[in-house]
């Protein structure tokens, strides 16, 4: 087959275009300062702190329409800042604009000194303390819980252990059946589930024994394995696409900033996360124990809204949707959003659907009219 002829004029024009793009990109990057790349900027106040855990209360952006306050609970892998990445891609802002009274818990930056913290500490300890503080401040007995990913597991377990303290349970991209990745078995989906099962429990123990914690860098590498070619092209092809457009470049850098902020996972808690849940799948079987108490999903009787991402390669939908068959809630709803794991928070379509659905659900079950 003959090769198509090269048009010299077009080639020169193309080279000039790329050169201009590179020059503009270089100038933009050179002029940018770290303070230009801000995430999680929605105004909030620190209202409670214990050890490294901080509870923040967001300042209202609109008239309060939902009386029962809500707490956003992210996990220990990654950070809650994903829910407030930038002004026009912020679940937090969207919820505040819809009249929610909103709190968020930040677990801080666990160090080697925190290696003996367990998930019991986080769920029946710090999370319970946060709920108590919010209830005290708002003068209510129950709060709404908005759990995200691993934080969704925290709130699910909490709701099962303390149903009397939870008004509604809203879950987002939350794994419940850790072996349900095999239901659809989509290519490239559920690799963490498979990878964790390929290890023996003793491997996890020794990994933690040797490192103290589960390093954030380690989990980041595992995440990158899930999208191998995307990871390889990120800093050349992908970056070139956005580098000469200040707005798009800032969006891209904000996401980079969030990705780079990957705290270490406390060692003992990581053992529970990987062995009890990913390997032995105790949560969906209601066999998991915290503080000597069984986490019985059948005790979840409050209204539940379970939000999942239809193309989530990290938490495949079936692993989230398994909750439906386990709870005894009179109002269990599911909402499948377009996009992947992170797209739920930053995707254009998702922005329009997610927050309004949550606000409507909470309003329907608002025990304390605003």
């Amino acid at each position, binding site marked *: 087959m003959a090769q198509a002829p090269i048009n010299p004029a077009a080639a020169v024009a193309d080279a000039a275009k790329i050169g201009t793009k590179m020059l503009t990109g270089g100038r933009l990057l050179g002029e940018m300062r770290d303070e230009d790349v801000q995430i999680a900027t929605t105004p909030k106040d620190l209202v409670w702190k214990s050890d490294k855990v901080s509870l923040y209360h967001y300042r209202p952006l609109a008239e309060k329409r939902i009386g029962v306050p809500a707490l956003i609970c992210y996990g220990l892998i990654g950070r809650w800042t994903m829910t407030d990445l930038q002004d026009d891609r912020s679940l937090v802002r969207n919820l505040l604009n819809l009249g929610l009274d909103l709190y968020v818990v930040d677990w801080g930056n666990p160090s080697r000194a925190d290696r003996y913290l*367990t998930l019991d500490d986080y769920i029946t*300890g710090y999370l*319970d303390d946060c709920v108590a503080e919010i209830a005290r401040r708002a003068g209510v007995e129950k709060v709404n819980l908005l759990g995200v990913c691993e934080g969704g597991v925290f709130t699910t377990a909490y709701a099962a252990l303390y149903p009397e303290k939870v008004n509604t349970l809203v879950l987002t991209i939350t794994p419940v059946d850790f072996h349900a990745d095999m239901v659809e078995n989509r290519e490239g989906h559920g690799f963490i589930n498979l990878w964790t099962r390929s290890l023996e429990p003793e491997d996890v123990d020794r*990994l933690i024994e040797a490192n103290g914690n589960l*390093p954030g860098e380690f989990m980041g590498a595992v995440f990158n394995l899930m999208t191998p070619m995307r990871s390889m*092209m990120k800093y050349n092809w992908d970056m*070139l696409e956005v*580098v000469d457009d200040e707005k798009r470049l800032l969006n891209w850098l904000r996401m980079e900033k969030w990705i780079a902020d990957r705290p270490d996972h406390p060692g003992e808690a990581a053992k529970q996360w990987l062995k009890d849940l990913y390997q032995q799948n105790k949560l969906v079987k209601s066999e998991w124990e915290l503080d000597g108490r069984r986490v019985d999903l059948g005790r979840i009787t409050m209204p539940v809204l379970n939000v999942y991402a239809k193309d989530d390669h990290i938490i495949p939908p079936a692993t989230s949707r398994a909750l439906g068959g386990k709870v005894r809630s009179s109002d269990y709803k599911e909402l499948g959003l377009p996009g992947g794991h992170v797209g739920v928070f930053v995707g254009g379509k998702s922005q329009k659907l997610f927050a309004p659905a949550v606000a409507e659900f909470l309003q329907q079950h608002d025990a304390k009219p605003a």
Partner: protein
Amino acid sequence: MSEYAKALTNFWSAQGKAVLDAQEKAARALTDNMQAMLSGRMPSVAEAPGDAGALTAELTQAGDALMQLWSAAGSLSTELASNMGKYVGGAKDDTATAVLERMLDPRQWMAGTGELDDVLARMAEGPRLADMWDLERRFARVMRAWTAMRRRALEHQGIALDAWMRAGRRYMEELAGHASADGHPLDRKRALALWTEVANRELLQTQRSERFLGSQRELIRNSTELRMAQQDLVEHFGKQYGFPTRSELDDVHRSLTEMRRELRRVRRALADAQAAAVPTPPPANDGPVAPAPRAPRRKATS
């Protein structure tokens, strides 16, 4: 400028230079670059210690096997480059060409797929302890663990390189199919997109294979053993000279965590007792407050 922004700027400058360099060389055949791969840094079996007996032999064997794979990958790379000329044409796109060149280079593949290996190696490779000659037994354990880990790492790289070769062959087949389907050669962007798709598929399949998972499991075990052997050596050294050791610090941290649990339990009990005796106080609004006590925690698992 922050270190973060500076690093990113430097990185981008380097990337930009690479793309501009590639533009200058655009007239040269892809073959040159593909063949240049063979001059890249090869895993060196000379790094293996000479006195580790059977382990060294296994390491050498793993190194030889990988050398053979690299050689085969080099041949395939040359063939790919030659076929690129046949099947890829259309409007010239220097960026796509540069990226495609990089992506089709097996060294890029190895750099991209080895991230977890690198992290494991960094986690395992602690301080170099060349001067600790008086601690032969512990030092030997470290060397054994290092040799075993290097061997596993070479085997694991072999699996990734094997996957690159499968992807390369499939890419050539699909490239020929795409080019002949509509009678026109693929342009550079479409050729790059096709490589991304084919390579991604192959990598994902490889990562889900028992061979890959088993190899990675062994690599994790070996890197963990290396780190523990190093810690054992350092503990021994620390004890001799009266320095605080990792184990002692862990003891302190364990005690601290347990004491905090106990403190929270007492606070919770106090608050419950007060709540039972006094009417509920009005809601407060300002400033952080001391944590409320809570129920007892279970102890750390082992």
